[in-house]
């Protein structure tokens, strides 16, 4: 298959990009003003032993390129450094937080895609109608909401006044769990508000992309031909229009991931949700550079991977992509 060569080329680019991010990260965090040692070990005085060990571990006495190689080696072995605030290896902290964020984002994305695509299809097929206008204006208002603000308003409306849903953390303090099911339910209740906030803001983006992709496709000649063939409206929409609209939708998904990550950071901050986003926020407050560096890297890797996957999916769907 010719396309195999295309995929291999894309994988090559993937690695080059990952590598560039690594390098970018390296330089970014090492142009910090001030003594790097002081930043790594802010607690106060260090014994000369510790200083020597830190120096060795991070190669701070060595020329920059040597430091770079040590950095790469550390990354490869999962050594992201030690957090200043938590005094623990960064990698441990990452592992704890990653799952929470992953659950939050996956849940939000599933619902966002379902609503966004469904509403987008309805709006596109009823272009110009009152329903379409309502959808479009609503989604524009939602898109204009700062995610963190939407969260704050939800807290006031649903969390505090009505006390339906918890507004912080992932478990109710002091609660005793009688079974795993209880634990899961408690977790789920804590997920509700953050997820709803994400859905409200991010669904707008998906809706607009789907709608404009479909509108574009529905005005093409081949859809006209399909109508002339006596195909039903449903068939035209789902079997002819949609597969073509998927192309720009898949391309736009890559940008969507960036939006999603930004949303996660804001939502986790507002709801004190212990995930990667809150981790980054706390790290910023306390200038915990090892965590900042590592979390930036993780987010970047995800975005790059998402881009790569969307490129590959695009290639699978579109027969016009040749073995360039």
């Amino acid at each position, binding site marked *: 298959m010719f396309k195999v060569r295309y995929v291999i080329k894309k994988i090559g680019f993937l690695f080059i990009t990952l590598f560039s991010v690594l390098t970018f990260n390296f330089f970014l965090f090492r142009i910090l003003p001030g003594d790097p040692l002081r930043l790594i070990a802010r607690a106060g005085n260090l014994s000369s032993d510790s200083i020597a060990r830190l120096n060795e571990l991070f190669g701070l006495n060595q020329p920059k390129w040597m430091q770079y190689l040590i950095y790469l080696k550390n990354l490869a072995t999962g050594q992201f450094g030690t957090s200043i605030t938590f005094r623990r290896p960064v990698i441990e902290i990452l592992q704890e937080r990653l799952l929470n964020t992953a659950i939050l984002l996956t849940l939000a994305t599933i619902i966002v895609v379902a609503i966004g695509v469904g509403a987008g299809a309805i709006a596109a097929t009823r272009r110009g109608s009152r329903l379409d206008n309502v959808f479009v204006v609503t989604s524009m208002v939602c898109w*204009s909401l700062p995610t963190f603000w939407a969260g704050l308003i939800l807290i006031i409306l649903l969390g505090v006044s009505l006390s339906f849903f918890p507004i912080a953390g992932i478990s109710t303090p002091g609660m005793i769990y009688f079974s795993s099911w209880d634990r899961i339910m408690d977790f789920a209740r804590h997920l509700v508000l953050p997820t709803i906030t994400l859905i409200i803001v991010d669904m707008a983006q998906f809706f607009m992309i789907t709608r404009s992709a479909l509108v574009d496709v529905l005005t093409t000649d081949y859809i006209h031909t399909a109508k002339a063939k006596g195909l039903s409206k449903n068939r035209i929409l789902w079997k002819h229009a949609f597969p073509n609209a998927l192309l720009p939708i898949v391309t736009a998904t890559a940008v969507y991931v*960036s939006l999603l990550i930004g949303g996660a950071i804001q939502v986790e901050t507002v709801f004190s949700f212990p995930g990667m986003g809150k981790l980054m926020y706390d790290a910023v407050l306390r200038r915990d550079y090892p965590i900042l560096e590592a979390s930036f890297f993780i987010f*970047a890797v995800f975005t790059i991977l998402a881009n790569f996957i969307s490129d590959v999916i695009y290639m699978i769907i579109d027969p016009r992509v040749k073995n360039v």
Partner: protein
Amino acid sequence: MNEKNINEKNNTSTSLILGRFKNETWVQQMWADPLGKAGIIILVAVILISIIGPIVFPFDSKAGDSVEGVFRPPSSVHWLGTDDMGRDIFRATLTGAQVSLFVGLTASAISIIVGAIVGLLSGYYFGFGSNLSMRVTDFFFVLPVLPLIIVLASIFGQNIYITILVIGLTSWPSTARIVRSQVLSIREYKFIERIKSLGATDFRIIFAHILPNVMPLIYSNTVLVIAGAILAEATLAFLGLGDPVRVSWGTMLHYAFVSGAAGRQAWWYLLPPGIGIVLVVLSFTLTGHTLDKILNPRLRDY
């Protein structure tokens, strides 16, 4: 020498893509669309308020009441209540408008100018420089935006100009990409060949001939960029990375959050700056949406 005449005769500038509707400019067309009209009205209103407001109702960030004056709901003295330090929220909101708009618009200007130039040059020229700039653009495009600006702001400092630079220098890739792909196709139009054979310099070709044809796309991209920049500034400020001295809407919300306004149900503290942000961004989104419809007739509803 006769280049200018040819340009006028051949109709090869803006009307290539703009497709004027008989005798209406696009501003008039936008006014005719209800969403576009709403967008323009809101935008003009906000800009006027942000200019006149702080002059009529100046805000003193240091003036605060004693402890009793803190977190007061709206009253006849303080129209929108007081914040966590007893300051008047109404005045703070007006001043915040100025700061938020200033940062948003300046950062966007940087972003669009850099993006357009990179897009024009890398689209027009072939070779190493063009490829390199395309790779750099793609690289930045692929980085997650909020983490990037958070990291940059936390490293380089909390100062309004740094914020502007950080936002501006992380959003140019989208403009660059769009401009570049448009330039790639315009470059092939025959009139470019003709003008070249008349001895036009590259500079003239790019800026006097290609650029006008790219402008419509830049316009509709501009609107999105500005909306994004205002949201970005608000988010940065909310997360505590804004300029502590210049109070923007995002900063107000930051202080609201850390002082527990949500828990105290101090809606008068949370609503005004948030609604301000939403209105400004919405006005740009509405105008952008209408602009898209004008530029691409296929998107029009009948």
